[in-house]
């Protein structure tokens, strides 16, 4: 029973981190219809930047996290400027292929700067003590992941629902030409989405690194972890991404706890199997917008 409770709670916390990474994908998908395959690499870059700041420059973790977010914003800006803006108006497929290229480039840059050595850094951005519920123990790094992901989800959802710029982003994703004709600066909107998406990736990368270490494998592992969450959550909903993160995280943990011994390696497969099963019954994912079709 205790093992089960521990697995559930850990799963929820880890899932929240996956959810945060997936929210970065949602932001970009929502505004430009592009599936950013470089998201995992961006997570890794964020993790390494925070690692350098905290380990090499011995900054407190919260300061490292804030500086890392600023750096990620800058990286998002550069990516948009060098890669995505020249491709604006091309088919989403072209742009998705560009993100594949981006993935290799980021990987190369990370290898050149940080190499293959892992970074291990403090496990809390927000200082929290261990929380014990009965015999179940929640460590600070897990709680940090949960809190930050939930706050990010609420902030992003409100921003997109209520604010003028957020509505403009949704409008742009539907019809760029029309958006431009009402005076929305489409290029600015796309720029903003890449900045927000990169910041989400960076944060998720830091939290991901806190669970163990930041290393050169994180880009791929991170991407494989957030793809099922992203698809499962319905591609366009922040709440969907968070809840899907919870579900995937819990399933992952349960598989790790109970099945891993008998079927080694199954932990990484279960979320993808789950994703396929769900897509058969709910093609729009859990919270996807159904496409409006009128005849």
């Amino acid at each position, binding site marked *: 029973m205790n093992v089960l409770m521990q697995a559930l709670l850990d799963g929820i916390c880890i899932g929240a981190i996956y959810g945060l990474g997936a929210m970065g994908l949602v932001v970009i998908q929502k505004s430009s219809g592009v599936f950013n395959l470089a998201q995992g690499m961006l997570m890794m870059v964020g993790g390494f930047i925070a690692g350098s700041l905290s380990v090499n420059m011995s900054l407190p973790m919260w300061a490292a996290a804030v500086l890392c977010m600023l750096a990620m914003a800058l990286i998002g800006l550069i990516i948009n400027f060098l890669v995505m803006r020249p491709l604006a108006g091309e088919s989403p497929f072209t742009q998705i292929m560009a993100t594949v290229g981006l993935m290799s480039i980021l990987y190369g840059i990370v290898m050149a700067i940080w190499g293959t050595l892992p970074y291990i850094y403090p496990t809390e951005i927000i200082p929290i003590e261990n929380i014990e519920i009965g015999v179940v123990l929640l460590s600070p790094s897990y709680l940090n992941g949960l809190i930050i992901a939930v706050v990010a989800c609420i902030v992003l959802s409100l921003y997109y629902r209520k604010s003028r710029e957020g509505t403009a982003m949704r409008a742009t994703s539907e019809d760029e030409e029309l958006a431009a004709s009402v*005076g929305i600066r489409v290029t600015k909107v796309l720029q903003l989405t890449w900045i927000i998406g990169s910041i989400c990736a960076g944060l998720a990368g830091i939290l991901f690194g806190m669970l163990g270490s930041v290393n050169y494998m994180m880009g791929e592992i991170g991407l494989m972890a957030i793809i099922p969450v992203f698809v499962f959550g319905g591609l366009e909903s922040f709440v969907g991404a968070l809840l899907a993160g919870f579900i995937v995280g819990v399933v992952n943990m349960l598989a790790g706890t109970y099945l891993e011994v008998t079927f080694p390696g199954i932990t990484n497969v279960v979320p993808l199997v789950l994703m396929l099963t769900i897509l058969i019954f709910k093609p729009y994912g859990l919270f996807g917008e159904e496409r409006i079709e009128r005849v």
Partner: protein
Amino acid sequence: MLLVIQNLEVVYNDVIWVLKGVSMEIPEKGMVCLLGANGAGKSTTLKAISGVLKLEWGEITGGFIEFDGKRINSLKPQEIAEMGIIQCFEGRRLFKHLTTEENLRMGGYLLTSNAEVRLRLEMVYHYFPRLVELRDRISGYLSGGEQQMMIIGRALMARPKIMLLDEPSLGLAPLMVKEILKVIQKINQEEQVAILLVEQNTKAALAITNYGFVMENGRTVLDGESEKLKVNEDIKEFYLGLTQIGSRKSFKDTKFYKRRKRWLA
């Protein structure tokens, strides 16, 4: 003159020569219609004015467009929108996953003060009372007429000096067409907004406008006051489908290619 177009030429994708010489003048608060058959270049003319042409690989290769005495050929769409030129696209283009009110608010995206947005919303609801109860509905599920009202409302939100309306009657029931055209006329008179109306429904368009231009094959070939155009022989034959006597015409008597030749020269 509010808007002056002189010998405008437009090429798509560097090869397709769509507009070959369009000239128009629209006075302040004018109510003008642009007529022509399919593919004559009416929509392209509107897109050239509002600047969205550049988003679809079109380019202005000759002539000029002046608004309020200022060249706007090379301005970006949002800069042109800021000047008060607002286009409603053909085929009821809307942000269909947004609610009616969000759509209207997007129309007023360039308004900086909240008070003005509210004021403008009030105004739109005054012209289209039916939209009030639909304000929180997802606009993709509204009926065609309601969507068209919302789209004209959205244009009105942007504090327009001139509205470019591309076939607002497309695909609507005749009664709805009448209602919408009436409101357009009312907006023109009460809000001092100039209107450039593109229509296939020639009769209705000539009835509510003061002046008209006719396009064919990328050129403006004829213009005049709507009253005069209504009785023009060519207009009557090609667009209203009537002969001199005013009776409907049978196709077997038509030999219109000869008359058309004269226009094309």
